[in-house]
């Protein structure tokens, strides 16, 4: 484990405000839309009114002539395709020939005012030839034509995955009990408070600067370089503080490219701020996912085999979808031991806004299915579901059937905490009708083991400058999206160099000034940029300390960096200020600057698809939800949630709590109400893309939460820290569903758990039918022959069996 400075930690593990807190609460923070440059133009985008159509003509002649209009762009002006993953470069800044969902960008205007730009949209005349629209997974399977894209595994099936670790059929034969269940997890969107905005400016010497509300400035820079055919060295992307991201600002977006292009065309700065409706069209949210899970267990609940199938409704573009598909099958194995495991996943293209990575990326859906199924299995076995889980936890420092390396695992402690806190043993199956408790667990990555595009460079870099005035500046490409990543850099450096974290300057998310960090996704930032910062700070300390030791004539190993001083631990009076220490070092060595970088450990999986799932460390959570269900209406009220989260170690317990509770809040929205609804029979239009009518809980709708943070430092985390931003969302929906069952005896195998569904299930129960609401069938999918990988305990080495490797196609996928 990486260590700090001396034994006692002075900053790490203590509650601190965030470094940007004062700016935020006093309204000083400059979000992208707050930026204003002289001569700035305003951009608006014309979007497709059709879900699926060919563009036959676009007439911009009248639009171009309007007074105040400085530019009009259409697809052919920016013909190069882009996309976040190398394997799905299927987006265009503006659709060149075809539109794929209502809201797909078609043309853009830059004008001297937003009003003129808006009015001009009506003067662009686009002729379309409509094509049949694909509205659902079932329709995508039934209609290979018309194809939404001319790439993908077949027809309108974007991606098909089939992996088998050990022989599952043999595993089912050994089981005492085998269950098959169907689940559906509805689509939801991120709903950040801040709508995406971007401002581009192009200098006379041909350098481009883009300010944007993005979580991934490095990837945006890459996309701009590709689409604008410009060297990345001339492109500067600055990620402004994000007013929330949650994965919705992780792709390079059409509007970012369009304003950049306009800035180059006009020589004037160009800004765009999306409307809320456009944010719904950018989407990249939770994939609606249909799931079939077959699990075999022994009499005491040990999983002998699991076969899991998922079908994802991907929307109109690839986005992170290939990775999302793998993720719906990756983490089933890291909580409870699974002897043999088979996963088949399919992502369909449909004519809706593209789905992508939303908080938990691809894992909340299967986690919902798995945890509800565990509840059903436990009941059938006559076991307490908490005990059943506790008995079969994955051991620490082990390999799973699909070759994920689990390091520390504090899940047992999480379960025990919430079981005690909620008085589970006195209340489970013992509460009066209408009241219930439910338990569920989860796990999530602390950063993905592999980058999105193949390279062997670090995932995160930090440069650190120590000034002779005692000032410290940390430069890092990481992006603060409200989660507090800037603060993490300050706390870690402050710990090592013994200064006040609020005295440190943090410069982040600027591709000109800061070394690359891949971005704020996959819960990677604290672990990766934290480790990079730790390394840079330790190197700075190691540069400074010898000079101080010499000056003070104290052995190096007795020096302590604390209280903005460097001093002798045995004689604290003997020392100097940190500024003097830097001066001593600078005098001897020259300018004091260091770098740090972080690359995750290599993962043992060597089969195609092994790139998705590995992580330096997995976080764990367990939650108990208590609900009240009104039998007459089916309305479910969540009264309280107890959650235990294995954080490894808190860098700052206050911000960890914030992440845990924020995750619960978002999880509750998904569990109870959030739904990306489309009028499928009717033009596949988003039902109502507004903040008022896309129902998401408000702070007043939030339940009481009791949070237990479990410290079990992980050797791969900075000071042992693991992630907090996503994992705690996962157990919420299944815990609520299990609690509803405990309360009124009906299984709601589908989220959101809307009153209508509960009511229907209650009626079925009353009439003696299956007391359940949920999907009733899983479609026939033309699965490819699975890739067979022997498990570690079968003597496997992480590679697929040789003869399986004959499939053709792109090289091994390495998406996070």
């Amino acid at each position, binding site marked *: 484990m990486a260590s700090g400075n001396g034994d006692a930690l002075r900053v790490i593990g203590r509650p601190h405000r965030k470094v940007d807190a004062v700016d935020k609460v006093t309204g000083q923070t400059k979000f992208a839309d707050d930026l204003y440059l002289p001569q700035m133009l305003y951009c608006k985008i014309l979007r497709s*009114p059709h879900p699926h159509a060919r563009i036959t003509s676009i007439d911009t002649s009248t639009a171009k002539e309007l007074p105040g209009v400085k530019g009009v762009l259409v697809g052919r002006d920016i013909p190069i395709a882009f996309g976040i993953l190398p394997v799905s470069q299927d987006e265009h800044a503006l659709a060149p020939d075809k539109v794929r969902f209502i809201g797909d960008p078609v043309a853009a205007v830059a004008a001297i005012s937003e009003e003129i730009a808006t009015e001009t949209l009506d003067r662009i005349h686009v002729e379309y030839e409509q094509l049949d629209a694909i509205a659902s997974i079932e329709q995508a399977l039934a209609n290979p034509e018309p194809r939404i894209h001319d790439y993908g595994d077949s027809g309108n099936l974007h991606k098909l995955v089939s992996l088998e670790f050990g022989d599952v059929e043999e595993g089912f034969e050994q089981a005492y009990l085998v269950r098959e269940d169907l689940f559906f997890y509805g689509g939801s969107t991120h709903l950040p408070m801040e*709508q995406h905005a971007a401002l581009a400016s192009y200098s006379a010497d041909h350098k481009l600067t883009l300010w944007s509300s993005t979580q991934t400035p490095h990837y945006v820079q890459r996309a701009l370089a590709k689409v604008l055919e410009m060297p990345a060295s001339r492109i500067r992307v600055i990620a402004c503080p994000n007013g929330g991201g949650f994965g919705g600002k992780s792709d390079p977006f059409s509007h970012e490219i369009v304003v950049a292009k306009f800035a180059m065309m006009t020589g004037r700065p160009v800004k765009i701020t999306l*409307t*809320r*409706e456009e944010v719904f069209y950018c989407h990249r949210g939770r994939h609606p996912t249909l799931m079939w899970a077959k699990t075999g267990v022994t009499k005491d609940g040990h999983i002998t085999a699991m076969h899991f199938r998922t079908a994802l409704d991907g929307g109109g573009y690839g986005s992170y979808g290939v990775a999302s598909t793998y993720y719906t099958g990756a983490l089933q194995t890291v909580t409870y031991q699974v002897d043999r495991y088979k996963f088949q996943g399919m992502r369909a293209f449909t004519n809706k806004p593209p789905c992508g990575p939303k908080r938990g990326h691809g894992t909340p859906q299967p986690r919902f299915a798995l945890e509800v199924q565990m509840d059903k299995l436990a009941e059938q076995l006559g076991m307490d579901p908490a005990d059943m889980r506790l008995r079969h936890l994955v051991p620490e420092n082990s390999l799973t059937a699909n070759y994920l390396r689990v390091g520390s695992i504090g899940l047992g402690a999480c379960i025990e905490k919430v079981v005690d806190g909620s008085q589970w043993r006195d209340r489970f199956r013992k509460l009066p009708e209408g009241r219930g408790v439910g338990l569920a667990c989860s796990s999530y990555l602390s950063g993905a083991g592999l980058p999105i595009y193949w390279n062997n460079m670090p995932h995160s870099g930090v440069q650190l400058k120590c000034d002779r005035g005692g000032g410290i500046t940390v430069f890092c490409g990481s992006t603060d999206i409200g989660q507090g990543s800037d603060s993490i850099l300050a706390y870690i450096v402050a710990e090592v160099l013994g200064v006040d974290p609020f005295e440190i300057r943090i410069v982040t998310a600027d591709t000109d000034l800061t070394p690359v960090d891949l971005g704020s996704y996959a819960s990677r930032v604290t672990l990766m940029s934290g480790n990079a910062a730790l390394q840079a700070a330790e190197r700075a300390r190691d540069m400074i300390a010898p000079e101080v030791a010499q000056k003070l004539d104290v052995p190096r190993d007795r020096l302590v960096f604390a209280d903005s001083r460097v001093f002798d631990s045995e004689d604290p009076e003997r020392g100097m200020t940190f500024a003097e220490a830097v001066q001593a070092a600078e005098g001897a060595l020259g300018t004091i600057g260091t770098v740090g970088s972080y690359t995750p450990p290599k993962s043992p999986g060597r089969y195609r698809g092994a790139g998705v799932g590995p992580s330096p460390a997995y976080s764990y959570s367990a939650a108990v939800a208590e609900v009240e269900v009104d039998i007459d209406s089916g309305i479910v009220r969540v009264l309280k949630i107890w959650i235990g989260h294995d954080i490894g170690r808190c860098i700052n317990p206050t911000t960890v709590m914030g992440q845990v509770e924020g995750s619960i809040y978002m999880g509750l929205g998904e569990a109870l*109400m959030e739904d990306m609804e489309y009028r499928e029979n*009717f*033009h596949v*239009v988003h039902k109502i893309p507004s903040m008022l*009518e896309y129902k998401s809980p408000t702070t007043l709708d939030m339940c009481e939460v009791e949070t237990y943070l479990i410290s079990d430092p992980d050797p791969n985390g900075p000071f042992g820290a693991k992630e907090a931003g996503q994992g705690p969302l996962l157990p919420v929906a299944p815990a609520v569903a299990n609690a509803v069952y405990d309360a009124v005896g009906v299984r709601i195998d589908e989220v959101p758990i809307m009153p209508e569904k509960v009511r229907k299930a209650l009626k079925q129960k009353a009439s003696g039918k299956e007391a359940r609401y949920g999907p009733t069938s899983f479609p026939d999918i033309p699965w490819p022959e699975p890739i067979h990988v022997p498990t570690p305990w079968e003597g496997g080495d992480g590679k697929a069996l040789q003869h399986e490797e004959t499939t053709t196609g792109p090289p091994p996928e390495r998406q996070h």
Partner: protein
Amino acid sequence: MLRLPTFTYLQPTSIDEALKMKQDAGPDGMYVAGGTDLYPNMKRRHQEPKTVISLSGLDDLHHVTINPAEGTAIGAGTTLSEIETHGALAQRYPVVTQATKLIATPLLRNMGTIGGNLCLDTRCNYYNQSYEWRKSIDFCMKKDGEICWVAPSSPRCWAVSSTDLAPVMVALDAQFTLIGTNGERQVPAGRFYNDDGIEYLTKRPEEILADVRLPAANGWDATYWKLRRRGSFDFPVLGVAAWVEWDGDTVRDARVVLGGVASFPKLIAAASEAIVGTDLNDDAIASAAQAAFKPAKPMDNTDFGLAWRKEMTRNYVKGALEELRNRHRKA
């Protein structure tokens, strides 16, 4: 961002001046009070006045006048926050306070007025959409189009009356004072609304709602139950206002009014009949609930599915009437 279009904003200082301005502006002119309904609608371009005439500076519209014997007058310009925190109103007309507290959010209630609430535009999720959205499916007859997307073969618009106070006012048989170019008139709340999503008010466009007169607070009791997705804020998908006049332990008169299920607050006469003359026993309540359930005809243009919303009518009418009975038995 979604921006307001350009428009002329006028600020009259008297009702007469306001009427004159409206006359000058013609059909392109609209009144605005708190603007919490009108401005969002203007941003989405489904209400497009060129001239907006503010009523917020008119002192004559801004008052609460309590007369214990004759009743109470609330000026249309009184904000919802003022109403909800008005002690004397809460004492005499707790149902008004209760319903007001359920409207929108505290911030919106600081701006929103009772007049604006009672004149609230009808709502429909094919209509409360941006210009681009409506254009993408083609416009509907309430604005710019020919057809009704909720009921394509229907000759009329089914947009939903979504004001929380209207059903309460109809249940209380409040009287509305209207001032127009032809002078002042009174209409009962029940006759202020039309069963039509477009022409949802019976008043002439230039008429200003000046005040709302509540009957004297004696011998009756009322309550309002609101169904919505979130407890924090949301328009009603169902509102039940129930009013009963007691004669000892017997219901002498009653009104049950549903909001959120039609283009107007719908008085359910059969529900009232089912309880008049009873002591509000379970059977009477059940038949009133059934009577309300039958004609409730929610359309697929609000939050939630229609079947469930219709089913909830029964529950909510039952709940509201039980509340009234229990309160009476306790008293």
